[in-house]
């Protein structure tokens, strides 16, 4: 199943970044596919990006809301929130585990041999702050003399944007290097910190700072597809604790907002068939175990 997940990550990463004409044209993809929302965090200024980033679009729309309202345009980001809300209702943070290119990059970095460190649970609340403050409040509230707000998260934090868009654009368009300043230095330092941290800890950006992950985490209890625990079969052996890349203690918190449904606990750890995947309460048949167990007998 881990191989399947890796292939899904590669395929979705490729589909959301499938415009490979940029080395010849030196410009980003500008076709109609960019009206489609990327399920994961994927900067739309990336030269190969064929879809838009939901977090970037929300900030842009909210930043321009005053100007839009003055012109009778009601751009409250409903279409973007609606899209990621439907995705969240269906999959929740399963998207982080299966469809986010930046999550995949962090997973690859974490394979580099080194001493590994846990991430304190309290840092996981940081991403909710980034979602509320940097993605919604600051673009809405802090506006310039023309009434336009900035995309604060993209501008000052997002390491995915620096890696997927900033650095490639600097390579493609050398004249942009003249514009580099403190803003880029700040973002370059943040990106470097997260990339090094990803070698030492599992998915540090997803766990501490990703606003999209924070949004999908809100659906942890109500999403259609999720893992379930059969308490009758669980022996509290804690084997699931040791394999989880997100630091979830699944037997203690089956609806944990950090769970990305990578299925490591189900396939690699649990020897007692206590963990299974379910859709809307109906257990799915698992490849090796037949029908998953249901409830207490």
């Amino acid at each position, binding site marked *: 199943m881990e191989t399947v997940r890796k292939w899904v990550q590669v395929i979705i990463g490729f589909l959301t970044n499938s415009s490979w004409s940029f080395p010849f044209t030196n410009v980003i993809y500008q076709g109609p596919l960019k009206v489609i929302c990327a399920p994961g965090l994927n900067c739309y200024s990336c030269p190969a990006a064929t879809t838009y980033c939901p977090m970037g679009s929300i900030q842009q729309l909210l930043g321009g809301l005053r100007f839009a309202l003055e012109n009778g345009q009601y751009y409250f980001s409903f*279409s973007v929130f*609606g899209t990621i809300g439907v995705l969240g*209702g269906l999959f929740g943070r399963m998207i982080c585990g299966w469809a986010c290119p930046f999550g995949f990059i962090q997973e690859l970095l974490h394979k580099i041999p080194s001493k590994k460190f846990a991430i304190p649970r309290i840092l996981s609340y940081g991403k909710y702050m980034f979602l509320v403050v940097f993605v919604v409040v600051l673009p809405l509230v802090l506006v310039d003399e023309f009434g336009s707000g900035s995309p604060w998260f993209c501008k000052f934090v997002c390491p995915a944007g*620096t890696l997927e868009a900033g650095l490639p654009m600097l390579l493609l368009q050398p004249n942009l290097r003249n*514009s580099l300043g403190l*803003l*880029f230095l700040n973002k370059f330092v943040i990106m470097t910190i997260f990339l090094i941290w990803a070698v030492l800890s599992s998915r540090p950006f997803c766990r501490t700072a990703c606003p999209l992950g924070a949004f999908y985490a809100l*659906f942890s209890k109500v999403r259609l597809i999720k893992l379930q625990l059969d308490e009758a079969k669980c022996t509290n052996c804690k084997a699931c604790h040791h394999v989880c890349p997100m630091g979830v203690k699944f037997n203690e918190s089956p609806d944990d907002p950090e769970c990305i449904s990578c299925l490591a606990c189900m396939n690699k750890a649990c020897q007692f068939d206590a963990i299974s995947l379910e859709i809307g309460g109906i257990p799915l048949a698992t490849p090796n175990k037949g029908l998953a167990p*249901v409830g207490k007998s």
Partner: protein
Amino acid sequence: MSQPSHELRKKRPIRKAPFVVIPIFLILWMIGVATGEPARVLEQAIQVCLSCIGIG
């Protein structure tokens, strides 16, 4: 003795919450589409936002 799969399925009730949440966001999406948001999103997404990626 193991029970047939259809009996096992009957025991756990279907969770209703996803079937409430998903249509709510679907309606939200439709409202956004009706106000013409996708055209604005496309307009933004086909341009490089230099300040967004730390340049300029």
